[in-house]
């Protein structure tokens, strides 16, 4: 059985704008899958519909046998523990320390009492420190998140997502707010750490080089539809043209 299965996913926003027009997608083992498309093609909406930060209008999302798209609020909270998310704008809590930000990754399993008192379990703290060490921010853990540079902040984002011990990582334009050099470092680090933890990555990108450089498989998205889904080495010119050529010419 597939790890993640998306069937017939559609999304129309209340504004009337249709972002997804029927997406079918399967993720199996630990691999890096790039969702490639122009801005407005529905990449972010697709990722957000999988963990239901955006509520899908229609379709099915199944993660490891759990029908995520049909869960109630409590069930959804439980299912989200298994999906780590990394954001373009990092989405760290500025006034909390780096370590607290990383530890917030285990809020899904922490008791309410521990959340109120910010008293995390010792082994969680230990694991958070190990992750900080792995992503290279161990010397920053006492700093407030807003004191870090962009690259460092995204490293915190990676550590927070992995803190969840997720079954899959949903990654939304992780390097778009970074300069190319730092972006490449972050991308490399993210893929390496995910591989060590045996976690597949579904990552949305708009940059072709980033997509081909790190992924094993590319899913091409255009106007809310998948226009190709192929091994990265098999992706050819005509496929790419189907994403990039402007609408009138197509």
């Amino acid at each position, binding site marked *: 059985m597939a790890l993640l299965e998306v069937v017939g996913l559609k999304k129309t926003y209340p504004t009337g704008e249709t972002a997804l027009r029927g997406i079918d997608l399967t993720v199996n083992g630990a691999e890096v899958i790039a969702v490639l498309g122009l801005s407005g093609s529905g990449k972010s909406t697709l990722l957000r519909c999988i*963990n239901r*930060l955006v509520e899908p209008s229609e379709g099915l999302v199944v993660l490891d046998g759990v029908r995520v798209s049909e869960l109630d609020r409590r069930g*959804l*909270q*439980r*299912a*989200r*523990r*298994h*999906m*780590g*998310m990394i*954001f373009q*704008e*990092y*989405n*760290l*809590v*500025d*006034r*909390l320390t780096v370590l*607290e930000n990383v530890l*917030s*990754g*285990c*809020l*899904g*399993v*922490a008791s*309410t009492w521990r*959340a*109120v008192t910010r008293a995390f379990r010792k082994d969680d703290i230990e694991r958070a420190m190990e992750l900080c060490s792995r992503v290279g921010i161990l010397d920053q853990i006492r700093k407030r998140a807003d004191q870090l540079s962009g690259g460092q902040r995204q490293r915190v*984002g990676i550590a*927070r997502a992995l803190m*969840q011990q997720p079954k899959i990582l*949903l990654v939304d334009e992780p390097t778009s707010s970074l300069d190319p050099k730092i972006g490449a470092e972050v991308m490399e680090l993210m893929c390496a750490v995910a591989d060590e933890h045996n976690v597949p990555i579904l990552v949305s990108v708009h940059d072709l080089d980033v997509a081909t450089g790190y992924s094993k498989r590319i899913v091409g998205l255009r106007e809310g539809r998948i226009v190709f889904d192929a091994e990265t080495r098999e992706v050819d010119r005509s496929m790419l043209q189907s994403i990039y050529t402007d609408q009138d010419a197509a």
Partner: protein
Amino acid sequence: MSGIEAADASGINGAGLIGDANPLRPRNTILKRYCLIAGFASVVLVLTAHVFVFQTDWARTGGLGQMLKTAAWFLPNLGYFPSILLALFETFLIALFGTLIGMVIAIPVAVLAARNVTPAGLASYWAGRVTIVLSRSVHELIFALIFVSALGLGPLPGMLALAVRSVGFLAKTTAEAIENIDIGPVEAIEATGARRIAVLLFAVMPQVFPIFVGNVIFQFDINIRRAAILGMVGGGGIGLIFAEQIMSLAYDRAGTVVLGVVAMVLLGEYISIRIRSWLL
């Protein structure tokens, strides 16, 4: 007006550039404006005469000398000062605890009244908003009178009056701060599968905290002034002493009370500044 006509006649239009269209505002617009100002001024004059001249007991006010003499009665009697210290301290505590109780009540009300985090949709949103409006639209003296009738005289009804009065301002500003937060961290914490309370504590609260603390301190500042008058209706503190001294014509002692209140307000201001720089 005749001057303008003369200018017209003397041929400014003849310069050619202006032609028939006068680039200035038309004359009767300006005239209308003068009439409006004159009308407005006469209304103000009549109203002034009404409230200042006819409604004032001029025989009792006396001349300028008499007025100065009356004002001099209020010169503080410093010997009286030690005997009001306890009441001043009580007033200060009424303001402090009134603010703190109001702060505690305001937090859940703010969560209800913030559109983006309100737990039960429109029902809880309006519950929050109505609470805020009720609190803000009633004067603290009215609240004090209500609590005095319910609980008897003393500082307790005064504190509760200030608390209830403070909820509106604190909850309203906090709800607005919550509505304006960056939604990114909220999404991130929600995406970990955290419960609502954990999302509030980790993603909402850190963003709202500095604004909330600033407003609590501001409210405390205001409440010190409010606490000083609560005693007049039985709400404890310095206000009762002030009313007593005025009624027994002990104006020097009343002046002392005013001086004491000013000192207390300054002290409160100083404490606010210290807390602010320490916390924020």
